[in-house]
Structure formats: structure tokens, C-alpha cells
């Protein structure tokens, strides 16, 4: 008994630490980041990325313990032998001309492309089942993906992760452009995050602000990546990205001051306790120049410079894991202010009322030096009432010329104008100081071809109708009112026939 006890104790001691060793060390990690980019048009783009990296080979082991990596997606990878999965839901369109190049653009609607492992025998069957399962997870109509909207691209959509060989037989791609993105797609997407929407950057994900945007795109990307620098083994990487563009006029009510509270109606309070890195990057490329158009508050302590998408950019870093960041005030509300007043100072637009008043558009613009400014207006051509057309409608309708009134800086200061002494050509416009002169320019008038109806149509219709009526009615009338006689064939020589012809012309009965 006494000898058994220390033995039992010894065994217990052995089991204790080895028991802890049997439990896997934490093999997954989470990084979250938010990039705020003020866009050239005054709007603001915010891109969230949540990356969970899991150091495990899903194919080889039978996995049953999920920590940060969501179980729903982990089971998908092992059941359908996925190599890569990319699923995105987008509403709106990224306007590259006004906003610059995007980090990651997605097509409008839902897009799903998947690389299967080469152990899969029936790829089409796995693809169909996978789209059904995903439709249940993300509350979307992905079950409408079938052979009529699936393709196998051969030249693009190479794997974004590690790949030995790329046999395109294992790739499937489908897009559902009609798919609507709304809160019911965001809710399960948020639930896949380790901190859900309770802590860290994901507290900013409120549906009523995120959908009040010009562009909203949320995506899930799963791919295998290198586990270490020498790349001898595989880790699974899950990236959840969400990009939104807040419109200056719709959400900002015309003002170009942005802050986290204004964009998301929330501020950041704490980092996600499960994240190893939690950062906010703000694009301050315009900040360090001399004119200093953009001001960021609170001032950043560290910056990051790199060449992104071809241009050199500077980012201010706000690290939520840095205790000094949050300790000052209990929340972090990053504010962006445009110091210089916006270029479009004044716009007045009065839309037309049919047959009452015309359109009026007035804009006060400050033109930068050595630049070209284009102002364009879209219009639609409409049909007028038929009495409102001129007799020559195919000539077109005139639009009055536009007027440009400008105050141009003068190279040389001018003397103040003396109305009586100076010649008449110098006193057309009253000018207060000599440093700039006033000029009023006009453009050419515009000749617009409106859709013209066919005015000859009534004439043609009347002719046709009268012909038809005459032929039909006239024939019936003749058939009903005339009697028919049999006529004897007339015999006679050529002379007699000619004579009869002449007599007929004269109106005289024939021979």
C-alpha cells in the first residue's frame, strides 16, 4: 500500500505533463487589419482583412479540434478535398477612374472559384454539393450554380496559394450577377470571425452603415501557404476581407471630414484578445507634402512606406495591441480632415421642368495650374409631342452655348482704369485690382439630333388604307351591283379592229 502510493503519485505526475503535451500547442493565429484610404474624389475606402493561419495538414490528420479556424470551413476543406476556395459577394462597382486601383476587386453579385485537390474523382459532383453547402452557410442562393453558369478557365485563375502543378480540370468558376448582398450575408460572415463582432476591429462591422455605401464587397479566401521561410510544409490561410467605399455626398453630407465614428457609428475600444496583431493603417501619402491637405488625428507614432500597386505610399500605423494607444482615452477614433477647402466650391443645379424652365448648372471651380479640367453632363433624348416639332426636325435642336466667366491672374499688374481717359476697349469690364483680369468666354452651341418620328407616316397610312379599301370594297361593290353578259368574240381583220378602236375612242358604237 505504501509502496503503491508513491508509484501512483509518480504515474500521476507522468500523466500530468504528458497529458498537457498531448494537447496540441496553439497552432493557429489571427491577424486583423483595417486600411483607410482617402480617395482622390473625396470619398473614403475602408478595407478590413482578417487572416487566420492554421498550421495543420487537413488532408492527413483527422481533425476534430478547431480553435480559431472556423469549423464550418475546416470541415468543407476536408470533406470536399479543396485546395483553394474564393467566394465573394459584392454590391456596386469599383470606379478605378475616380478612386484609383483597388486592392482586390470582385465582380458584382456572387463569385465562387475553387481548386480541388487532384485526389477528387468527380469534380462536378463535388462542385455542386459544395455550392449547396455554401449557400446554406452564407444564406445566399449559391445553389443556383450549375453547369449552365460554371466554366473551367484555362488561362487565368491560377492558384493563389502553393501549387505543384496546375491541371485545369480541377478548377471551377461561377458568377451569379443577380445575387443581392445584404445583412443576411454579413451575419454568417461575421460569425466566422474568432472574435465575432464583440471585440477588435470587427465591432465596426455594423450592417446599417456598411450597406449605405457606394461599394461593398465581402469575401472569403482559403488557400495553402508556406508555413515558414523555407517553405517545407503547408499551413492553411483563411482571409476574410471586406471593402467598402463611403460616399462623400451620400454618407458624408458633402463634408469631407471623416472619422471612424462618422463612417461606422462606432469607435475602437480594444483589440481582439485572440489576435496576435491588430492594426489600423491610414494612407497619408498626401500628408507629407508641402501643401498638407490631409490631417490625421491622433497623430501617428509609426509609419510604413512601401511601393503599393506601382506608386510609393506612406501609411500611418495605429497598433491596437500597443497599450499606450488605447490607454489615453478609452476608445480610438481616428479622424481625417481635409485642410484646404475643397476645389468644387459652389455648385448650383436647377433641374428643368418640362415646358416651363430649362436646366441651369452653375459651378465655381478653382483650376490648378497646368491642368485640364473636363466637365461632362449626361443627358437622355426624349420624344416631344408631335405639335412641338419644327417643320424641319431632322436638322436638330439647338442647346445654348455654355458660359465661362473667369478671373485670370495677370502677368503684369495693370493700372486702375480711368473711365474717361482710357480708350473704350479697356473699360468693358470693371476690374477692382490690377492683379487679375476678367474674361467671359462662350462655347459653341450644341446641335442635338432628337429622335424624330416619321412624319410621312400618316400620309403613307392614308394611301395604303385607301388603296386597300378601294380594292376590297370596290371589288365587292362591282360584284354585287353589276350584271354580267357573255360577249361574242368579235371576228374581223386588222383594219376592222383598228377602226373599232378609233370608234371606241370617239365614243361611237363599234362596227
Amino acid at each position, binding site marked *: 500500500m505504501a509502496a503503491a502510493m508513491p508509484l501512483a503519485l509518480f504515474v500521476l505526475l507522468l500523466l500530468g505533463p504528458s497529458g498537457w503535451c498531448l494537447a496540441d*500547442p*496553439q*497552432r493557429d*493565429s489571427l491577424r486583423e487589419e483595417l486600411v483607410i484610404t482617402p480617395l482622390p474624389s473625396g470619398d473614403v475606402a475602408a478595407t478590413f482583412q482578417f487572416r487566420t*493561419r492554421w*498550421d495543420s495538414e487537413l488532408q492527413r490528420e483527422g481533425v476534430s479540434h478547431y480553435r480559431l479556424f472556423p469549423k464550418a470551413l475546416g470541415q468543407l476543406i476536408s470533406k470536399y478535398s479543396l485546395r483553394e476556395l474564393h467566394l465573394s459577394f459584392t*454590391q456596386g462597382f469599383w470606379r478605378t477612374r475616380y478612386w484609383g486601383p483597388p486592392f482586390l476587386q470582385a465582380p458584382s453579385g456572387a463569385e465562387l472559384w475553387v481548386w480541388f485537390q487532384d485526389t477528387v474523382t468527380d469534380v462536378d459532383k463535388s462542385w*455542386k*454539393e459544395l455550392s*449547396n*453547402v455554401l*449557400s*446554406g*452557410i452564407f*444564406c*445566399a*442562393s449559391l*445553389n*443556383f450554380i450549375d453547369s449552365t453558369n460554371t466554366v473551367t478557365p*484555362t*488561362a*487565368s485563375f*491560377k*492558384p*493563389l*496559394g*502553393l*501549387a*505543384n502543378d*496546375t491541371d485545369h480540370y480541377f478548377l471551377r468558376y461561377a458568377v451569379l450577377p*443577380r445575387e*443581392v*448582398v*445584404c*445583412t*443576411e450575408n454579413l*451575419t*454568417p460572415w461575421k460569425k466566422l470571425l474568432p472574435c465575432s463582432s464583440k471585440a477588435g476591429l470587427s465591432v465596426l462591422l*455594423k*450592417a*446599417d452603415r*456598411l*450597406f*449605405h455605401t457606394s461599394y461593398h464587397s465581402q469575401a472569403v479566401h482559403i488557400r495553402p501557404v*508556406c*508555413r*515558414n*521561410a*523555407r*517553405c*517545407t*510544409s*503547408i*499551413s492553411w490561410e483563411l482571409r476574410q476581407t471586406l471593402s467598402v467605399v463611403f460616399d462623400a455626398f451620400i454618407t458624408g453630407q458633402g463634408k469631407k471630414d471623416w472619422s471612424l465614428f462618422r463612417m461606422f457609428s462606432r469607435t475602437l475600444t480594444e483589440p481582439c*484578445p*485572440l*489576435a*496576435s496583431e491588430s492594426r489600423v493603417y491610414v494612407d497619408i501619402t498626401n500628408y507629407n507634402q508641402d501643401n498638407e491637405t490631409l490631417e490625421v488625428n491622433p497623430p501617428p507614432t509609426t509609419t510604413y512606406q512601401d511601393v503599393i500597386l506601382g506608386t510609393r505610399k506612406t501609411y500611418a500605423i495605429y497598433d491596437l495591441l500597443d497599450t499606450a494607444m488605447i490607454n489615453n482615452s478609452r476608445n480610438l477614433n481616428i479622424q481625417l480632415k481635409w485642410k484646404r477647402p475643397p476645389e468644387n466650391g459652389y455648385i448650383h443645379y436647377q433641374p428643368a421642368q418640362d415646358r416651363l424652365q430649362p436646366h441651369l448648372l452653375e459651378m465655381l471651380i478653382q483650376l490648378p495650374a497646368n491642368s485640364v479640367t473636363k466637365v461632362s453632363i449626361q443627358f437622355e433624348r426624349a420624344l416631344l409631342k408631335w405639335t412641338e416639332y419644327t417643320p424641319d426636325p431632322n436638322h436638330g435642336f439647338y442647346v445654348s452655348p455654355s458660359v465661362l466667366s473667369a478671373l485670370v491672374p495677370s502677368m503684369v499688374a495693370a493700372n486702375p482704369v480711368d473711365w474717361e481717359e482710357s480708350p473704350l476697349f479697356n473699360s468693358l469690364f470693371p476690374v477692382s485690382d490690377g492683379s487679375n483680369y476678367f474674361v467671359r468666354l462662350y462655347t459653341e452651341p450644341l446641335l442635338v439630333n432628337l429622335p424624330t418620328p416619321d412624319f410621312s407616316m400618316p400620309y403613307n397610312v392614308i394611301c395604303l388604307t385607301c388603296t386597300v379599301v378601294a380594292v376590297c370594297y370596290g371589288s365587292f361593290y362591282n360584284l354585287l351591283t353589276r350584271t354580267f353578259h357573255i360577249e361574242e368574240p368579235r371576228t374581223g381583220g386588222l383594219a376592222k379592229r383598228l377602226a373599232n378602236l378609233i370608234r371606241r375612242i370617239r365614243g361611237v358604237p363599234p362596227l
Partner: protein
Amino acid sequence: MAVSHCLSWAATAFTAVLLFSFGSVAASHIEDQAEQFFRSGHTNNWAVLVCTSRFWFNYRHVANTLSVYRSVKRLGIPDSHIVLMLADDMACNPRNPKPATVFSHKNMELNVYGDDVEVDYRSYEVTVENFLRVLTGRIPPSTPRSKRLLSDDRSNILIYMTGHGGNGFLKFQDSEEITNIELADAFEQMWQKRRYNELLFIIDTCQGASMYERFYSPNIMALASSQVGEDSLSHQPDPAIGVHLMDRYTFYVLEFLEEINPASQTNMNDLFQVCPKSLCVSTPGHRTDLFQRDPKNVLITDFFGSVRKVEITTETINLQQDSEIMETSYKEDQMGEELMEPLKYAEQLPVAQIIHQKPKLKDWHPPGGFILGLWALIIMVFFKTYGIKHMKFIF
């Protein structure tokens, strides 16, 4: 001997005491049982909420369904037990001045869409076929779990339908209808497959009472917003959104349900009185003849709430701090696996490889039966025309 006698006396006394206690327990048991007879015997709750109308001017039907969804979730039924079918998307509709919201009260007081909504069947998936498949359980095997009604014979199911209807039918998405006979047959299939314990059917359409006239399965209680020949009217428009926000009947049902909490004892008779003719303009109707229990013993939470198995404990559980979260394994895996070759990423645009891809040979398929038959017909006609004697030389 005396000891055994003593023991036997003790035993009999003991058994007598036991029997007596059992008797008293049995008496209270009988009382309990009698009371339980009037209570429902369900163990889980399900809800199937259907909005069948498409287009922006039918905003109120989506708001109706979402307000019932909201009440049902608030009273305890989880998303996994709710099948929500919305035929159109109003919240993120481009015509919605407040995206991601659906309001039930004017002046935007109550957003019934919320932040935590899961729509199972949406847009084109809301069809009569899918609805009947959900009810009867005859679903294709690849359907995900959230789109299935996995009820059993101890489930209480709430079915709510709203849209445009007429005498005996309900219109789905302006392109098909479901008749009251089909619905009654679907419920009978559910009864025969033991897919429900009790069923509450609520319908808010014009002439809604016609939809429950044909039910013939037991344990069904039905409510409708209007009688045959009457129209159900909408409640109030909102000038900012520009459409009517709710129907009257569901508006007052929502007001009634907002007063209910998971522990309340309100019964069905109160629900029957919810919208009198003075408020609703139409006459709401109900049907209880197929239901076994008396409506005054049926609690609202029997259908709108959920049975929850909750175990209360007074222990405190300490959550451990996560220690040393870091980007691991940069160093750990250096030891092992030195013999494997390094893996590499694929090239995104390998131009040379793309250009020199061999085109895949199309598989050759033999001509189909139709084409063979057509050619046989042509040949027959040819030989008939030119004389059958030619065929002898060929065959």
C-alpha cells in the same frame, strides 16, 4: 427468532411507510398528470415564415414576415429552427432610402430587419415547390441543414404566410399560386409522416380564411386576417420610404407579441381577439375544430416561444488567460522535414505555358437515336419511291 421477527416488523413498517409515501407521491403525480393533459407535450419548436411577394411596393409583406421573425427569435426560437423565406430583398433594394433596414412603424421607429438575420430561402428560391418540399421533408439530399424543416412528432410548428391571395389560393411571386387544397394535403402528409405535434397556421392575405377551410388533419389551429370576400388592408405609409409599411392585422399582432415574454401565460383566446373589426376593417377569423386542446389552455409561447433545456449551475468557472499567442512554428519545424523539397507558389500569368496549351480533343459521341432514326426514315422513303427491288441488292 426475535431478531427475525423484529426485522420483519421493521421491514413491513418500512414498506408501509414507503407505500404511504408512494401513495402521496402518486396522488400528486395524478394531479400533475391531469394538469399535463391540458399542457402541450411538445419538446421543440419550429417556425416557417413565408413572404410570397416580390417588388418594392410589396414592402409591407416583407415587413410582416420580419416582424413575426423578430418576435419568434426574441421569444427563444433559434435561427437553426426557423425557416425564413423572403421572396424579394427590400433592405438592400436600391429604392430603400435607408439601406439594410426594414421598418414596421412609420417615422422609422422599429427596424425589424436588425443586425442578426438569416434568410434561408430568398429571391427566386421562394416557390411553391420549395415551400411544399420544406413542409413535407422531401428535399434533395444536397440541401443544407439551415434550409430543412427537421421536425419530429413532438414539434410544435408555427407557419406564417403573407402575400397576395384570393378565394382559395395564395400567389407566389406573381407567377404561380398555391391552393388551399394543396396546402391541406401537405399538412396531411406532415401528419402521416409524424412531422408535427401541433401546428399553428397564420395567414395575412386578402380572403385569408379560405386558405384554412380545407384542412382535415388533426391538431391544427388556424388564424386568418380576413374572411372570404373581404380584403386585408395595409396599415400606414411612410412618406420617406414611400410605401405602406405593414398590414393591419400583422401590425396589431406584432403589438400584441411585443408584450409577451418567454414566461408569460397569455393564451390563444387573447390572440383571437387581437384585431377587432374597428381596427382591422376586415374580420379576422380562426379555426379550432381540428385542435384537441381548448384554446384557453394553449399558451402563446407554445408556438411563438421555444422549449429550452436549461441547466442552472451555481459553480463559477474560471476562464484561463490565453498565454503566448504568437506566430508560431517559424522555428519549430526547422528540425523535422529537412528532407522535403521547398514548395512554391504558382505563377499567376505564365504566358508561355498558356500559349502552348494543347487543345483538348472533344470526345467523340456516336450519333443519337433520333438522328439514326431520321436517316433510316429517309432511306426507306427513297427506296420505296424508287422501287423495292433495289433493297434486295443492299440487304
